[in-house]
Structure formats: C-alpha cells, structure tokens
C-alpha cells in the first residue's frame, strides 16, 4: 500500500515580477513502512514539500495524499495521523521537557502512558532532565524531545525535516539508529537531509535539486545507474593534480573527494592512459584506482546532466 502519493506538485513563491518555483511538478510515492529519504541541498524544495504533505502549506498545483487522505480536502484527518518534526526547533521553550510532551499528548487526545513504549528508548535519554525548560536544553536533547513529541500520538507517518543538519558525525549516527528502531515499529518515515552520505541508510531516496527530482531509486539502484567508470587519484601535490586532471582529454568530470580526487572517465579511455598522463605531468607518489561511486558522485553527475 502506498502511504504517501505526490503527483505533479507545484509550489511558487513571490510575486509575478520575481517568482520562484520552489517545486516543479514533483511526483513520487512512498510505501507503507518505508524509510524514504529526500536528499538535496538547501533551496531544493524539501521543506516546501514536507509542509504541503503535512497540510501546513497549500500547493499551487498537483495532488497529494497521505494515508489515503487528500492534503487539501482532508487536512484535519491528516493532522491526526502524521508526526512532523520541523527543521527549526518548534517546541515551547518556556515549558519543561515533561510539560511539552504532556501538552502534545493531550492535544492528540492521548496520554504519555498510552504510547510510552514507542518513545521509551528516545525519551528515557532525556527523562533525567524532565523538569528542565526546553529552551535550556542542548541541541541533541532538543532533538530527542522534538522526536518524542512528534511520536507521542503514534502517527502512521513521520515527517522529519533535516533532523541531522548541523549535527556532528557521532550524533548523526545515533539519530539514524533511532530511525531504524522506529521503522521496525511499522511507522512510515520520510526524512530530508542535505548530507549525501545519509542516503545509504534509507530504503529508497529521491535526489532533489532546485525543485526537481533528479532520480528516485534504492541507494544501490542509483549507484548502479552511474554509467561511466569512476577513478580515484592522488599524488604528492593534490592541488596541482586537480588542475592537471581537468586538462585530461578522457576526463568527463574531475572533482576533489576527500583525500582523493575523483575522475569520471569518458568511454574509450583507460586507467593506463590516466596514469601515463599523470606521470607526464611529473607527479610523484601517484595512486590511481577504480572505485565504486557513492551517492554524492551520482548527485554531482545528475546535477551536471540536468
């Protein structure tokens, strides 16, 4: 069963003179129980999309449904059954941790006890601070409280808008572990992120850029669609290697990638030719090898193709 269906969703901002099309006919669907990632940089349209699906914003075109309900006509039903964690901390700063959670439970006609098992693993980590005001919590604790509040009414679909932005690598890992546990509870999860490396943690992802979906597939499927041979190369002088490789005839694209540079090889060229070229530029400590692309390589390639 499809829990979320979006068809040709359009959203525009601004007046006629300076109109920005934030979403340009975006279509996708999400299966029940799926962990679906919307991966793209700032300005891609991720937040607009989530706000439309959670009935907080009206689309300018297209139709969408969540749990079988229309996002425009049936907004009240949708609000009862989705959990939404916005990118910006939106709980009541002047209420304590426990008060915030009780408040959200109450407005959804439930109680903390009724659904405690669902949030237990997350909430128990901040429970020692339950009498602290939410505004006084650290970033990581705020995030756990926000997630607890978004879950307290046992939603069937959870929307998480950039939950890991600005969060360090350790906390990001922890957060994704929490999502895996929630998925096991059968909750459908839509999560947006600008971090390309988080794509591999989703069942399926939509890569999105300036309001357009570049590709929708499983992470493995997206990687399998990368047609060219990809090489990683390094030498003693990385900056001049990057400049040199850009001059190589067989390079479809060259860009820095951590401690290596990545070179997208044109058809008809070989790794031996790349090595010969690098040596002809007097580089030392050369290391060139074929590598499997990751989502970031695919994103760069799709971005340049579109």
């Amino acid at each position, binding site marked *: 069963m499809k829990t979320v269906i979006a068809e040709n969703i359009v959203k525009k901002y601004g007046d006629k003179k*300076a109109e920005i099309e934030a979403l340009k006919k975006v279509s996708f669907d999400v299966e029940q129980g799926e962990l679906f990632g919307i991966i*793209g*940089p*700032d*300005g*891609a349209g991720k937040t607009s999309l989530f706000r439309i699906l959670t009935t907080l914003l009206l689309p300018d075109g297209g139709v969408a449904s969540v749990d079988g309900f229309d996002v425009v006509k049936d907004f009240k039903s949708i609000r009862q059954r989705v959990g939404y964690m916005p990118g910006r901390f939106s709980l009541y700063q002047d209420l304590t941790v426990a008060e915030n959670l009780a408040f959200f439970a109450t407005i959804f006609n439930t109680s903390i006890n009724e659904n405690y098992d669902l949030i237990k693993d997350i909430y128990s*980590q901040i429970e020692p601070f339950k009498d602290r005001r939410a505004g006084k919590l*650290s*970033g*990581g*604790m705020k995030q*756990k409280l926000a997630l607890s509040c978004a879950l307290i009414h046992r939603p069937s679909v959870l929307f998480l808008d950039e939950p890991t*932005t*600005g*969060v*360090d*690598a*350790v*906390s990001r*890992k*922890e957060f994704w572990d929490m999502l895996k546990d929630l998925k096991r509870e059968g909750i459908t999860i839509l999560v947006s992120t*600008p971090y*390309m490396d988080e794509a591999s943690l989703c069942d399926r992802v939509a890569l999105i*850029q*300036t309001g357009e979906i570049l590709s929708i597939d499983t992470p493995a499927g997206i990687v399998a669609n990368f047609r060219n041979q990809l090489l990683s190369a390094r030498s003693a002088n990385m*900056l001049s290697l990057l400049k040199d490789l850009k001059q190589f005839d067989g390079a479809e694209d060259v*860009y*820095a*990638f*951590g*401690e290596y540079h990545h070179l997208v090889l044109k058809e008809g060229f070989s790794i031996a030719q790349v090595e010969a070229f690098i040596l002809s530029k007097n580089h030392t400590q050369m290391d060139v090898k074929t590598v499997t692309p990751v989502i*970031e390589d695919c*994103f*760069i390639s799709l*971005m*340049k193709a579109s």
Partner: protein
Amino acid sequence: MENVIIAENLTKRFEHFTAVDAISFEVKKGEIFGFLGANGAGKTTAMRMLCGLSMPSSGKASVAGFDVYRQTEDIKRNIGYMSQKFSLYEDLTVKENMQFYGGIYGKSDSFIKEKTEFVLNKLHLENEAKKLVKSLPLGWKQKLAFSVAIFHEPSIVFLDEPTGGVDPVTRREFWNLIYEAAEQGITIFVTTHYMDEAEYCNRVSIMVDGKIEALDSPGGLKQTFSAQSMDDVFLKLARKAERSDN
C-alpha cells in the same frame, strides 16, 4: 614561517563549566586550518575568543599579532568572518554589500571600486551587481559571502561551517575559493561537519570536552589513530566525549 594565531592554555569558564580547557596551538600564515569537534566540544567559544568577541578566563592568545585581551578592536579590523547564516544584507544589492563592508572596514573609495569589479568579475556576477542579494541562488550567496569576508584583505578569515546545506558542486567551488585565498597568503580557520572537507585542510585539530585531543595533518591523524578516513578518526575521538551535546 610566521604564526598568525598563537594560543597558549587558552581557557574560558562559565561559572562552574569550563567550555574551553587550556588549549594551545599555532596556525601559520597561509595555512588552511580545520577546527573540528562534536557539538558542545567548545569550538564556537574558542572561536569567539580568537575573534575578540569573548574575553578569555585565562591563558594567552594572539591573532594577527594582536592580543585577545587588550587589542580586540585591532583583531576585529584584521580578520574576516563568515558563518553558515549569511553575513550578507539580503535587502542590499550585490554591489551595495561590498561597498558597505568596504566602508565599515575603512577602505578608500578607489579601493572599494577596484575590488568590487575584481570580485564581480571573478564570481561571474557582473550582470547581478544591481540585484538584491535575496534574489540570488544559495550557492552564489555563499561564494559572495566568502568574497565579502575577505574583501578588506584580512590576514586571517574565520569560517564557521561555511558549506552547511550547500550542494556538492557548489561546495567544491567554494573550496577552490578557499585554496586561492590561502595561496594569496590569507590564513583560513575553518569549522565543518563534512569529514571529506577535513581532508582539504593542511592541518586539523579535534576538540573533545573543551580540550584539543589531536592536532596533525589529515594523513598524520589517520596514521596515529590507525583509521581509514577522517570520519573514522573523528568518531574514535568524539565517541570518548563525556559532555557531548546529547
């Protein structure tokens, strides 16, 4: 080589909490220095002291040759700063932003005019000079913000997560600007959550619980911690943190 930043046992305490705990390090002229740490490790507090915005509790430090206790105004005049939240005025045009920043740093009209043309040319923004900054795509804003941060030709520029949320192509273009600035002798002090960007730094320090736990070239750090990548190095160190932000 000349040291542009020198910190010796630099410490900041807030009542009973030691946010920055006796950190010592030097940054050389023209170096790209990565300043990493988990959320809550004390990076922002350390950076605020080095920018002359927060008085240290103890220890010594100088930035661009000026003392962080006594010469904070000189420091501010001689550094550039850019954060993830844009340092640009959205309701001013591209050109006005540059004129404004050039003006507050006391640059002459001829300097501002010449430099504005240079930056517009370099970023290929000639046709956008009279457009409001808010109308620019995000990637352009980010590159413009960096160019504005070094408009007055500071000896050092502090970049606080400059590439957060930026697309992977723009992120790399941004790093090209960083390399160019460093080649011209501007020292780069940068924080980031992208571990691949740590690889682009000449040296990297990693803060854990207010202390600098490791400081070396990316290659040196990977060797010391028998790690495959900077991501591994970071996880090995940051997992030990007791006061992580969580």
